[in-house]
């Protein structure tokens, strides 16, 4: 019976299923994430340092890397500033339409990137909605680095808002009142008391937005113009090299991107004030609870002109970057009439794309659901060594570019890949076929369900399970009758977000799909093909289906948050 606590892998517990859950979670992560990533690093290693370095510092690569990281840093900074203003306005002020606006902040999480890309292009192209107004002033947005910036602001917008919002909601009014009684003016209170308290959340949101922006592919390539040395981002260069069968170059660029990203994230992690904990980076809740108007007294709010200005800034920013692109999708879809619209979405290739998209999601989402449950069970119900490592590993795909997610499977399963000859001799096709598309989709959506379940199950603890066990329930009975019902809404929440990303994934799928019309084209890829054929109305028609999916996702998400806030996650409760 005696156990040596220091040496045991895990603290003894009566809760069953540790081995099964941890074993499954680790095997899954190993097969989907770690081994493929290792394959890329291995491939890069075979280049030798000199070979690797030559590729990375070649002018075209260097220009692409510089463009990617500089535009991402600028976009994340802009998002940090406007994110704080938006979070402030949403938490502190009341105005008509506030709840709707709050719900729309998550649009970039739900809208497929390819759809965002073509919509932003329609707005900012020289003949576009806003572009045509800017052109006479000599300002060109689309097909320049400025266009890249616009796309990156769009996709990174929710991060800072959603990390700052809960902190601001928790911030005690009494502290502000105390500052006021001590003689601080309102601006002094904000600058010296409130903003410092927000810094860790701002940095976390900044880091997440940055990681996302650096790897972004789908929304950028439509608006960037993709001119080498000018507006060609690093993920695109990887795709171009792959299409030229330049596996060594693609691998070197991918590895360099990974290294720089991890370096940047580590740096931000280390400069976080208030100690270095993995909690700040990993336990980020991207969704706060909306609570009824937070009316401050005179002391703890701003004078009305300031309020009006801040609300104005937030509303205009959100309208410009979120509502306008969404509107553009539907307007462009119906530009040549309803008949063309229905023809476009009922044409055989479009239907095939819809079917493939549904099929891929139907495999990827349940797989990640089972993984999420297993990982959350191990992490939340047990104390064991390496737990924070596992926790960090789950988030890893969030900081890997989707293009790299595709690349690693090509390096592993492609004709030139490590397993290529074996697969070919056995007539098994993974890349450029359904299995590859599914794998790449699973990779990018691995964290979604687990991320929702882990904090909630950690907060719920093990008491309910212990009660059920002591009443005679078996392990599986406990799981199905007690644990699962306790997390059902959070589970649905995670599944909805996972599904949105799975159906909308572009970069990773694009690399492994092969773009065979009617066979390996998912809906986002079909949008791209139609768009590149200048069949804009049809592209927007198919895109509008994806936009509807995004709206449905947001609706379910907001409904869950409003009705079951207390059962979704600890960080969302008030």
């Amino acid at each position, binding site marked *: 019976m005696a156990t040596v606590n220091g040496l045991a892998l895990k603290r003894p517990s009566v809760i069953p299923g540790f081995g099964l859950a941890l074993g499954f979670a680790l095997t899954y992560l190993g097969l989907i994430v770690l081994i493929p990533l290792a394959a890329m690093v291995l491939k890069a290693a075979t280049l030798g340092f000199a070979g690797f370095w030559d590729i990375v510092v070649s002018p075209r690569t260097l220009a692409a890397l510089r463009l990617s990281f500089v535009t991402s840093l600028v976009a994340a900074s802009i998002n940090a500033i406007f994110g704080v203003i938006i979070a402030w306005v949403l938490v502190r002020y009341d105005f008509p339409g506030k709840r709707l606006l709050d719900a729309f902040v998550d649009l970039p999480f739900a809208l497929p990137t390819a759809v965002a890309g073509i919509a932003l292009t329609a707005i900012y192209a020289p003949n576009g909605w806003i572009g045509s107004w800017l052109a006479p002033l000599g300002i060109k947005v689309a097909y320049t680095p400025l266009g890249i910036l616009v796309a990156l602001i769009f996709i990174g917008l929710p991060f800072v808002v959603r990390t700052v919002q809960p902190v601001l909601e928790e911030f005690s009014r009494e502290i502000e009142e105390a500052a006021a009684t001590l003689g601080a003016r309102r601006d002094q209170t904000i600058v010296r008391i409130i903003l410092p308290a927000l810094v860790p959340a701002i940095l976390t949101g900044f880091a997440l937005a940055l990681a996302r922006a650096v790897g972004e592919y789908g929304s950028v390539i439509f608006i960037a113009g993709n001119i080498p040395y000018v507006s060609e981002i690093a993920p695109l260069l990887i795709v171009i090299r792959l299409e030229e069968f330049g596996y060594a170059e693609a691998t070197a660029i991918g590895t360099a991107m990974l290294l720089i990203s991890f370096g940047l994230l580590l740096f931000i992690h280390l400069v976080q004030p208030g100690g270095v904990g993995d909690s700040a980076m990993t336990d980020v809740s991207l969704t706060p609870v909306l609570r009824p108007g937070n009316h401050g007294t005179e002391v703890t709010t701003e004078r009305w002109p300031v309020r009006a200005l801040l609300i104005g800034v937030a509303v205009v920013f959100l309208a410009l970057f979120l509502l306008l692109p969404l509107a553009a999708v539907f307007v462009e879809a119906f530009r040549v009439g309803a008949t063309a619209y229905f023809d476009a979405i009922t044409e055989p290739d479009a239907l095939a794309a819809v079917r493939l998209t549904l099929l891929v999601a139907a495999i990827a989402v349940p797989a990640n659901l089972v993984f999420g449950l297993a990982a959350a069970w191990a992490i939340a119900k047990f104390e064991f060594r390496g737990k924070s490592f596992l926790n960090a590993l789950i988030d890893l795909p969030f900081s890997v570019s989707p293009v790299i997610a595709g690349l690693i499977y090509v390096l592993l399963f492609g004709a030139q890949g490590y397993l290529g000859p074996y697969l070919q001799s056995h007539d098994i096709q993974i890349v450029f076929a359904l299995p590859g598309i599914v794998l790449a989709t699973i990779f990018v959506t691995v964290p979604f369900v687990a991320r929702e379940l882990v904090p909630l199950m950690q907060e719920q603890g093990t008491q309910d399970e212990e009660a059920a066990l*002591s009443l005679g329930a078996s392990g599986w*009975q406990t799981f199905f009758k007690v644990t699962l019902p306790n997390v059902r809404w959070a589970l649905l929440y995670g599944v909805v977000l996972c599904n949105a990303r799975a159906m909308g994934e572009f970069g990773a799928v694009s690399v492994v799909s092969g773009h065979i019309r009617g066979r390996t084209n998912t809906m986002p890829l079909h949008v791209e093909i139609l768009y590149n054929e200048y069949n804009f109305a049809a592209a927007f028609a198919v895109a509008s289906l994806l936009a509807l999916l995004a709206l449905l996702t947001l609706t379910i998400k907001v409904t869950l948050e409003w009705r079951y806030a207390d059962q979704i996650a600890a960080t969302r409760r008030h």
Partner: protein
Amino acid sequence: MDAWASKTFDQSPRQRGGDRHEDAPVDVTVENVIRTFGTTAALHGVSLDIRAGELIALLGPSGSGKTTLLRILAGLDVPTSGRVLFDSADALSLTVQERNVGLVFQSYALFRHMTVLENVGFGLQVRPRSRRPSRSEIKRRALELLDLVQLSGLEKRYPTQLSGGQRQRVAFARALAIEPRVLLLDEPFGALDAKVRRDLRRWLREIHDRTGHTTVFVTHDQEEALELADRIVVLNNGRIEQVGTPDEIYDAPNSPFVFSFIGESSTLPVRVKGGKVWFDDRRLDLPVRDLADGQGRLFLRPHDVEVVADDRDAITGVVTAVRRHGGSRRFELGVGETQERIEVELPSLAEQTVGSKISVLPQRWRIYR
């Protein structure tokens, strides 16, 4: 005690439903149980005999190891070493499920998504088919238990729609539903307000007398333990200080810890010499029979003192503070050369005030060294 236990056992509801021998209340024997967490020990070799059918309190300050011991009994935790026997069978080799103990958690751990009725019926619902009562039988028994805990009519509610005291009783009924061999309650009234606590105490005693389960309840409230338990186990820092009836514990505490933890107390440094007790240079008029000479500490209770007119053989001090205390008055005295503080309780009509001189002799007291 045994006669009482078997008498009440006859009225047990489990006699109607179950006929399995193992449902009968059991003796619980804890032998030299040690439990360490990392380098710190939560239990340092605890041994205890709990008799079938008795209501026993584990009493001790926060962190003394009460919950740890309870969880070991329940099978939710495993001792680092030592044995636990139910009757004479090894309990540690039984899983939680097999152990068949009813555990009422400190925070109740009610299943949020189930109604009151479903919560109470859960333990029967999850039995293997061969031992599972029919659906209607489960419902009948759950309703019967809800009646026992006086919650009839609330069976369709969810836990969040109940008051704290009601939740407590649902948790209790749920634990009773599995016809437990031992009933374990962790701070059962800890989260409730004073009035509800007193009502539920009486109610628990009544239920226990009707059902006759071997019941162990944890509390840090000495008043609760004294009022409710047949016997009290005083725990301190993972060790048992004393086991006894409430009277034994209160009237004959065997250590300074028990004396000061149970009821209020004051203490003074004294010397014993030749069968006499000395405080500073005064010989106190306290009979000590078989105490060897040496230094010691005198423990006394504020309400167990008598004011004496003759101050030569008494503890004499000057009043430094007066407080109202229920129907009487508390006087804080500074006594002796070092102005030791003691508290004494006198009738509210006492005319002494700050600065007055008072001489007292304890009526009940103990000297520990």
